């Protein structure tokens, strides 16, 4: 028996080129005659543009052109928002690519300089004179909705972008009849989803062809082409978007940005290729931010600890404009998943989307689900304290029992499959939870503060059925497609619509195909990221690439195999019914020597010397996969932390991640995704957070002020898993790219508060910096 390639932790084939500098990123693209752009950005959070004088900049050395918003009139359409949830009075405000009369956040584009080199462009930027009339600004989403707050868009009174409510079950009754209610105000602080590669674009307009080629650091080049055609007016078939090598996204490269359209505009005006790469400082201001919720949440329960209801009022910051998927994050991806893994009769999410004078907010790893998991799990820990019960036993008591094909929750969605308790038990057993609690008690006696956080979660990903996409206002489909093709030598290429940018699908999709077709994994190549040679796809985000795109690849491979079987029967001169298949080989039943490998058949199909009557030459297939439902990965995470009460320093002593993403295509890559996701989520708990001053000036505008997690801040992670296949896709797989970020923030948070409980601490706003912890301890002891 050979080892199955599906499920094998083989090394990523992407890595040799990435770690040896052999990859070609957008910024590496060099074209003849290429010029360079730099974008002037508003230094103010909110201001009227009284005048712009570009004359000095236009005459500066090397400058080819200077454009302002007025130049784009009638040429560039506004930047669209592509996710407009229905029935929530959403205000799809005008978002010009270059601001015209008003700037609404620090970083709003005001002008663009194109020069022979980037230094000249940057020098010329300093020569543009803009007279601003500064307007009052507001950054906090709850404050932005208060009477008297500065108004950001004329057609969005009270800065309300939308008001969306998901009310499942009878939440009023649940709270009216509750024995116990616990409440909390949670600040999901604003984050910046940093990728190692900054955003970059190279636009090449060829006037003779009327065609635009755009290299773009995108997670979804087909969407950039789709939306780009709406913004530029160039027909979709005359736009080619290339995003073959993208150095990380984490949600930040999902949106359709103004900048890429500005660069395309410049190329179209000048008939020359134009390059722009964001500086890191520019990225802080003009690449989307994430989270930014002010949440008032509460949980209802019986005295016995049965949870009966969860409800929220959330002010979700949208920033100055609605970014591509921004409105979908606090609503669909957050408000529908308040049940988590628990049997809860009623959940209500009351969500206000709010404009503020800040960088637009969109998807940041987990997008909505970390926020939901956080509020559920935080409230349960508060309930445990209130009831004087163990937080783990309280969770266990409320878990949904095992189900294999569908479980409806209060919000109206249907989970795919779940078996939550075994993973909880596995994690508890792994750490010997009772012994840990005893150790905690002993440590407290000698003035040492260790805390334990345990999270059970379910998340919604693998976006998703297209019919649902339409119903929830997503401006596109959510299916995926793939073409799998045998070449004459028996080697295979797959052309996929999704667009991996670090997740390793060149490896894992090759594993799927090798497994389906019985060929060596090294005989399979995966092509992605270029709209000119890949089939339509909606992109890589929402942990959907393997579940939806992987399914399309598998289905295409299965179609090929079926055709190969027919051709094999013909070539082996046997009846179809007598042809059997094993490990890449077709053979005649009872005569294993009369056989042909699928690669031999591929050669014969390609030369087509001897085809059955009516069979087309070639051996390839395309498949479209539109999933019948989302997938719902789940798990239990546990953290042990120790807090030094002298200085408030937190040390993560242990982190155990137990996740069930169904069958694992490549366990090593799964583990890597868990590592990265956990680090991202712990970053939010302990270090990361955007700070604006009262004038909307970004104070955390560089890597020296915005602290990203680093390897040395973590212990070795302990990774556990169970396998519960999803019935909703042919591979049974569920997403794993975001689970770490979804579970880890609250796991660490609860562990820290657990550690500090003897000191009277019940709440600290994130990130849990040493000073905040120290101040909380002082206040806790003083009260």
């Amino acid at each position: 028996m050979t080892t199955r390639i599906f499920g094998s932790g083989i090394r990523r084939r992407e890595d040799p080129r990435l770690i040896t500098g052999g990859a070609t990123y957008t910024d590496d693209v060099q074209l003849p005659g290429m010029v360079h752009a730099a974008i002037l950005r508003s230094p103010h959070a909110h201001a009227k543009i009284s005048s712009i004088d570009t004359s000095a900049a236009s005459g500066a050395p090397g400058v080819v052109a200077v454009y302002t918003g007025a130049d784009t009139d009638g040429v560039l359409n506004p930047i669209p928002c592509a996710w407009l949830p229905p029935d929530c009075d959403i205000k799809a405000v005008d978002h010009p690519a270059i601001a015209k009369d008003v700037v609404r956040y620090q970083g709003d584009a005001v002008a663009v300089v194109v020069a022979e080199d980037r230094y000249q462009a940057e020098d010329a930027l300093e020569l543009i004179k803009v007279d601003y009339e500064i307007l009052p600004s507001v950054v906090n989403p709850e404050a932005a909705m208060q009477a008297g707050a500065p108004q950001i868009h004329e057609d969005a009174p009270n800065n309300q972008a939308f008001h969306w409510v998901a009310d499942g079950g009878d939440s009023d009754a649940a709270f009216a009849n509750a024995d116990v209610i616990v409440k909390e105000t949670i600040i999901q602080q604003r984050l910046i989803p940093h990728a190692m590669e900054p955003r970059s674009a190279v636009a090449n307009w060829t006037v003779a062809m009327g065609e635009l080629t755009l290299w773009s650091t995108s997670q979804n080049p087909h969407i950039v082409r789709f939306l780009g055609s709406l913004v530029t007016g160039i027909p979709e078939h005359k736009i080619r978007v290339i995003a073959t090598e993208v150095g990380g996204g984490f949600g930040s490269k999902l949106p359709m940005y103004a900048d890429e359209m500005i660069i395309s505009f410049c190329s179209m005006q000048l008939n020359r290729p134009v390059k722009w790469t964001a500086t890191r400082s520019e990225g802080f201001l003009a690449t989307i931010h994430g989270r930014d919720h002010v949440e008032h949440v509460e949980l209802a329960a019986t005295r016995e600890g049965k949870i009966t209801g969860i409800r929220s009022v959330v002010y979700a910051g949208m920033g100055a404009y609605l970014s591509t998927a921004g409105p979908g994050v606090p609503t669909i991806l957050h408000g529908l998943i308040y049940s988590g893994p628990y049997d809860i009769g009623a959940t209500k999410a009351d969500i206000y989307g709010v404009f503020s004078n800040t960088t637009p907010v969109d998807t940041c790893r987990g997008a909505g689900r970390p926020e939901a998991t956080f509020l559920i799990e935080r409230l349960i820990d508060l309930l445990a304290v209130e009831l004087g019960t163990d937080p783990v036993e309280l969770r266990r008591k409320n878990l949904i029992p095992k189900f294999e094909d569908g479980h409806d929750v209060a919000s109206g969605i249907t989970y795919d499959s779940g078996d939550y308790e075994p993973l909880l038990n596995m994690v508890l057993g792994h750490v010997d939870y009772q012994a840990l609690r005893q150790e905690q008690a002993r440590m407290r006696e000698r003035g040492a503060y260790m805390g334990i956080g345990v999270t059970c979660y379910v998340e919604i990903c693998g976006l998703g059925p297209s019919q649902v996409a339409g119903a929830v206002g997503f401006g596109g489909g959510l299916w995926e497609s793939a073409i799998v093709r045998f070449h004459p030598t028996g080697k295979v290429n797959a052309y996929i619509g999704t667009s991996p940018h670090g997740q390793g699908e060149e490896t894992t999709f090759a594993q799927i195909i090798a497994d389906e077709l019985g060929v060596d994994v090294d005989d399979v190549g995966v092509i992605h990221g270029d709209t000119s040679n890949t089939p339509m796809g909606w992109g890589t985000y929402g942990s959907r690439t393997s579940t939806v795109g992987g399914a399309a690849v598998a289905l295409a491979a299965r179609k090929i195999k079926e055709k190969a079987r027919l051709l094999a029967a013909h070539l082996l001169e046997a009846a179809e019914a007598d042809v059997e298949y094993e490990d890449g080989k077709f053979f005649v039943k009872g005569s294993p020597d009369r056989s042909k490998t699928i690669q031999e058949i591929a050669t014969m199909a390609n030369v087509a010397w001897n085809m059955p009557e009516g069979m087309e030459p070639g051996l390839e297939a395309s498949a479209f996969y539109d999933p019948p439902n989302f997938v719902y990965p789940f798990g239990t995470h546990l953290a042990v932390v120790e807090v030094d009460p002298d200085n408030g320093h937190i040390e993560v002593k242990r982190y155990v991640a137990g996740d069930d993403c169904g069958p694992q295509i490549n366990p090593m890559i799964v583990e890597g995704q868990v590592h990265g996701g956990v680090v991202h989520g712990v970053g939010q708990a302990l270090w990361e957070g955007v700070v604006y001053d009262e004038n909307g000036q970004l104070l955390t505008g560089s890597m020296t002020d915005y602290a990203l997690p680093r390897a040395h801040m973590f212990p070795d992670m302990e990774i556990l898993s169970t396998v519960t296949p999803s019935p909703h896709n042919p591979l049974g797989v569920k997403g794993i790219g975001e689970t770490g970020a979804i579970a880890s923030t609250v796991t660490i948070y609860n562990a820290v508060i657990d550690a500090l409980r003897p000191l009277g601490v019940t709440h600290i706003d994130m990130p849990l910096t040493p000073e905040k912890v120290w101040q909380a301890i002082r206040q806790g002891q003083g009260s």
Partner: protein
Amino acid sequence: MFATEFEYKKASSISEAIQLLSSNEGAKILAGGHSLLPMMKLRLARPTMVIDIGGIEEMRGISVENGTLRIGALTTHAQIADSHVVQEAAGILWETAYGIGDPQVRNRGTIGGNVSHADPASDLPTVLTVVDAKFTIQGQGGITRRGSRTVSAGDFFVGPFTTVLAENEVLTAIEIPVLAENQKAEYAKMAHPATSFAVVGAGVVLTVDNNNVCTAARVAVGGLTPTPTRGPSVEAALVGKELTDENIAAATALIDGDLGSDILGDIFASAEYRRAMAAIELKHAIFHATGLAHH
């Protein structure tokens, strides 16, 4: 991330560097580049000329002579961290160098460039102050009427990003008294999670006799004050005392009175918090120095 235009000159000797510095207003010395270049890329620094002293061999090197450790100003953090000579002579500096930045920073950044930049959050100013380092400064005799001069670390730092270096002077070497067998030296810090720079750093050099009694003490804190601050009250309270938990705690608490009122604060750590942490980090440093590190 794109510097303004500047002229680049490579100096082949200290005197040439000083000559260039003296005759070009707005010129800046480039050593390892880890302070100057980021400022230039952000256009916060706009020198008209950059004088690269990286090739001046006489400014490199580590040696010990007559009880003094001499380190050329161009010696990189990595070279210090890799040096057994430094480890033996001044373990506190050796260990601190290893904790600076990351390998790339340590491979390029220099001890002289670091202290000339005088970032209050940098570790080396505090450590060099507590070990009583002497800085050798070379000027142009004809113009400044000062040829070479020596300034102690305690006098070198004037304020944030400001030193006694005149416009046309260059720091060429740093000399440190070799620590004696009975001297325990340690540096402890609360590191900023983004940069590992010191939010509060504390250095101690304690002379300890066979009965665990402190017979001499130098302590200094940095990160929270514009320049490294000595703790005379702490020093006085330590001397003559046995180094017990209680005595250490009582002595380090006195740093508050030595700090003055000019305490730095930012969005990560307020002045109030940093002030309170000075005693904590001093305590950590002494615990580490005396082997009571289980605290």
